[in-house]
Each structure stands twice: as structure tokens, then as C-alpha cells.
């Protein structure tokens, strides 16, 4: 079942990529594939400064964060899609730098969670680098279990807290 869904997604990605060939707009194209159309550079004159954290966060619409299973740090297909959007943004604004923050849920011991957050942040960073983002533009920091976004003690909350978040360095 999963396999079929993935296959369909892949083919539509290819179709999209195929249609999108001709006009190399003024922005340099994303390094590998172009699974999702490049975010239209929000031309809001009063909006946040392009390249700023506020602008990035709003442009990502949630894709600034990827999530992990308990004690895991592998990048799955959903994470890859989100990281590709991040990479496109970073490519579009080549003077920006970003921090990838790694987090763990509260259901772990403190030192292990710090190490786990490091793993997660580095996994996300490594994928961004594989998409062509210069290593020097990306730093990592682990907050372990110290900065939950959801303070409940439930499996759903823990799932939201096991994350890596990319944040622009303003």
C-alpha cells in the first residue's frame, strides 16, 4: 500500500519536473530535483525581510520542522520533502545562514537526549548539504529535552517534540 503511494508521488514529481523545465527564472535552480515548485517569492512590500527568520518561517508553512520516531534520527520521505523546500529557500537567498536545532521528547534521560538532539540536527543538516547547501552556512545545536513545543505528557505531544527545526540566523 505504502509502496504504491510512493510510486504515484514519484511519477507526479517527474511529471511536474518535466513541465517545469523551460523558463529559468532569475533565481538559480535547486540543485537536484524540483519536487515542489519554488516558493513564489512573497512580494509583500510590508512583509518580513526576505532571508529573515520571520520570512523563512512563513514561507515554509511548517516545512521548517521535521519529526522523528522515538530514539530515531533517520530522514524519511516526508522529511526529505520538507528539507528540499528548506534547501530551495536557502538557495534562493544565498547570503543566509541557518541553525538546525535538534530536540528530543521528555521521555528520555537528559544526557542521552542531548546526544539524540545532536544526531537529529546533524541528520537534517547532512541532507541539506547533500542538496547543495554549503556546510559553512549551517550550524547545529542540540537542546535535548529542554525546549518542548508541546508541554503535555502524551504520545502525541512527545511526537511533536521529537524534531529538528531550521531557523534563520538573522
Amino acid at each position, binding site marked *: 500500500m505504502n509502496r504504491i503511494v510512493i510510486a504515484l508521488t514519484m511519477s507526479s514529481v517527474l511529471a511536474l519536473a518535466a513541465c517545469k523545465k523551460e523558463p529559468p527564472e532569475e533565481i538559480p535552480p535547486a540543485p537536484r530535483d524540483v519536487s515542489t515548485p519554488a516558493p513564489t517569492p512573497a512580494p509583500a512590500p510590508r512583509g518580513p525581510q526576505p532571508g529573515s527568520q520571520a520570512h523563512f518561517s512563513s514561507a515554509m508553512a511548517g516545512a521548517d520542522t521535521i519529526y522523528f520516531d522515538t530514539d530515531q534520527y533517520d530522514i524519511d520521505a516526508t522529511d526529505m520533502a520538507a528539507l528540499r523546500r528548506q534547501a530551495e529557500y536557502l538557495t534562493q537567498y544565498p547570503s543566509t545562514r541557518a*541553525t538546525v536545532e535538534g530536540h528530543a521528547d*521528555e*521521555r528520555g534521560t537528559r544526557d542521552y537526549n542531548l*546526544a539524540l538532539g*545532536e544526531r537529529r540536527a546533524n541528520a537534517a543538516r547532512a541532507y541539506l548539504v547533500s542538496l547543495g547547501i554549503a556546510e559553512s552556512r549551517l550550524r*547545529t545545536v*542540540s537542546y*535535548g529535552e*529542554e525546549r518542548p513545543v508541546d508541554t503535555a505528557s502524551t504520545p502525541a505531544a512527545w511526537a511533536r517534540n521529537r524534531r529538528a527545526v531550521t531557523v534563520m540566523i538573522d
Partner: protein
Amino acid sequence: MKKAALLTAIAMLFSAPAFAQSSGDLLPDLDPAGISAQPVETTMDDGGENGPLRGTVTDDSAWQDTGIAIPAFATNREQPTPANSSGTTALGQELARVVFNDLRNNGLFRPVGPDALPRPSYEQITAPAFSTWQGRSAEMLVQGYVRAGTDGRLTVGCYLYDVALQSELAREGWVVLPSEWRRAAHKCADLVYSRLSGESPFFDSRIAYIAETGPKDNRIKRLAIMDSDGANHRFITNGRATALTPRYSPDYRKIAYLSYTDGNPRIYVYDIETRQQVLVTESSNPTFAPRWSPDGRWILYSMAIGGNTDIYRVSASGGGTPMRLTDSPAIDVGGSYSPDGSQIVFESDRSGAQQCYVMNADGSNQRRISFASGRCATPEWSPRGDQIAFTRIAGDFNVAVMTPSGGNVRVLTNGWQDEAPTWAPNGRIIQFFRSERGSGDSSIWQVDLTGDNLRRLQTPVGASDPAWGPVLP
């Protein structure tokens, strides 16, 4: 808004290479007298024979039920003292209260304190009115005195008597600065405890921990220290940067701990006397989980390079090349030395989940020791060497002990999340912290090796990451 400010701070710190760091978020107003670890002078100036008696206790099995009367300490002459605004008579009452609370709070013995007992005269300290105490069904009697010397220092004497036998079991005396009067009381409690139980003393010791305030998603975590009974509480950092996982050096002169003061998780070694701190190692990589060797010469730390965490050892005196002790692609973290310094127990998920491993101090001969059900995390070797305490993760998190070969696992607590055990200096009591489900509020607890005597430590605010130091000199 808050996030923007935070990011600015991180960005500013990102470019600033910090090795030595002076004040930053360290509090400036520590009273060095209250946190010094100066040896207490033992005195034997009471005439009579020499020194404490040594021998075996007549009834070892029932000592925990022993009734002990602890009346107010007497004074030879009412005098003013900086240790108590009401003078030495009131100080004598306070001294006995500290001894009483030490012995009572640990579930050892059945002590009766000075507020419920008649006050002996100064002359009676060495010649107890045994008939009075027999009438009160006391089996043991602790009496003491306090004298203020011309130099302001205090002399405190402590005597333990067997009421039925009408004989002296132990005596000792100490000369202390007025600011350290509580230490004399802890030494007295230690004398009584070790004489009656046959165990090593532990009351005259200190604890470093993390004080927690604020909501779960914006918690302020400050480095703090206190005596083993919670007295002489002091904050060391102001909370601007998150502080975690402190460890006292064996001589109490330094504290290694993690701080985000430059925006990254890094271990600093804080010098209590100079109030300066330095990075444990000059590296841009994150470092965490600091641990001292028992002789204070080495510090273990965990460092992540490219996301992979391994355990390293560096000289505590600074300088020197760090030695990498583990090299697996898994998370290898923490570490706790055996008392003789020859081995290290640590935690690794190289098997796929957190388990406990032992290696030689140079990193050789790594072998897994935990094979019981559940995961094994935060192992801490007992100062006696006979047990390893750890966080057992099997659904809930609980504190458990096992032998150094991983056998005879005993679970000592049953909270929702009890973690990070630390040993009392005598290896008979364990402190840990407990987090409440939902609120995440944390508190420090202690439990003895039977698991029967569990109690919460009183701290001014929330508390986590306790680290118990050795007995003070």
C-alpha cells in the same frame, strides 16, 4: 518576540569564540566562607581518656529501631557568637536540632529532639543523669556542648552514651568557624550514625543540583549548591543561560557542569573560590555529561562530532590532549569511575537501545553488563564499589541497582519518571530526581538501598540533576 531576542543572542554568541569566561551569568555575591571546604579541626581537649571508643555494637540487627535522645547542647558560658544572634545557649539548641533532623530524616533510628527534652547542664555533658533518660525509654543518648573561643571560633563536643549500660560509646570534638557551625552538628550525627550502624559517615557533605523555576516550555535552570540536609543553599548562576548536570570535584573546589551560556551546550569547569570558569576542552563541538575521576585528576566528558557522541577523558588541571575512550558510531555517553579509578561504567545504544557497559579506564575491554529486562541509562558506580545505580527504563523510569557484573537487579523506586541516581558518600543512600507527568515539575528524592526509606528533599524551588559530593574533610 522572545524568539527574536533569543536568536539575536545566539547570533551574537555564534561568532564569539569563548574559552575562558569570567562573570557572564555567574552570580557575583557568593559568600566564600559558606561554601569553602576547609578541613574541620578535630579536638580532644576534654581531659579524660583519648579519642572515640572503637568496638562492635552489641545489637547490630535492631539499630534502626533504636530510640535516641538528643537534648540541647550545653554551653559553658552564654556568649554572643556570629553563629546565632541569641548567643551560645540558643546555638546549643540549634546544634541538637540539626543532629536530630539528620538522624530522623533518613529513616535511621527513632530519635527524639531537643524541643521535647529537658536541657542538661554543662557539667552533665560528661556525667549524664542516666536515671532521667532511662525514665524516658531512651536507649541511646547524644549530648554535646558548644563554647565560643576568644578568637570567635566555636568548639563543639559530641558524646554518645548507652543509657542501659550507662557507658560512653563515642566522643569527638571539633573547632569550627562560626559560619560552619552546622558542619560540627553533621560531624556529630555522622559519629552517632557510623558508631551505631557500622557504616561510613555521610551527613557532612554537599550536593550540587539544578534549581528549576517557570513553566515547562520556558523553564529557567540554575546551578545551585546546598548541604546534604538542604541548608546553606546558594545559587551560582543567575538563570540567563540554561545550566544542566553539575558534578562536584572530589575536593569541592570546582564544579563541572553544562551551560548554554554561549548558545551551545558546553561543559565548563567552575572554580568556587575564584568564581571563574573555563571550557573543559577547547573545541567547537558540543560537550556534555561531565564526570570526575575519584582522585580528581581526570574529567570524563561526552562530545558529539558530526552527530556522533563518544566519551573522552581530559586532565582536570587543564591542558593536555583529550583521550578518546569510545569510538562506536552509536551514542556512547556519561561514564562513572569505579572507586579505584581502574574501570568506567557508561551508557551506549550500540545494541540498538540504551544499555550499560564497562570498560577499562583507558577505553579497552568494553563489554555490556546489563541484560535484564528494560533499558539501562545513567549508570553510577557506588563509592563502595559493590553496586552500580542506574535509571531503568521499562515503561516508566525508575532507579535501580545492580552488581558491577550486572547481576542482582533491584528496583528501588516507583515514580513515573525517576532518573539520574547519585550516591551518598557512604554508598548506602541514593539521591535522584523525579519528574511529574504533565507539569514536568521536578524534585530531588533520596532512597536507601532497602528501598524502604524514601523521602523528598526540601529545596527552595524545583530541583533536578543532583550530584552528591564526598564527606568533607
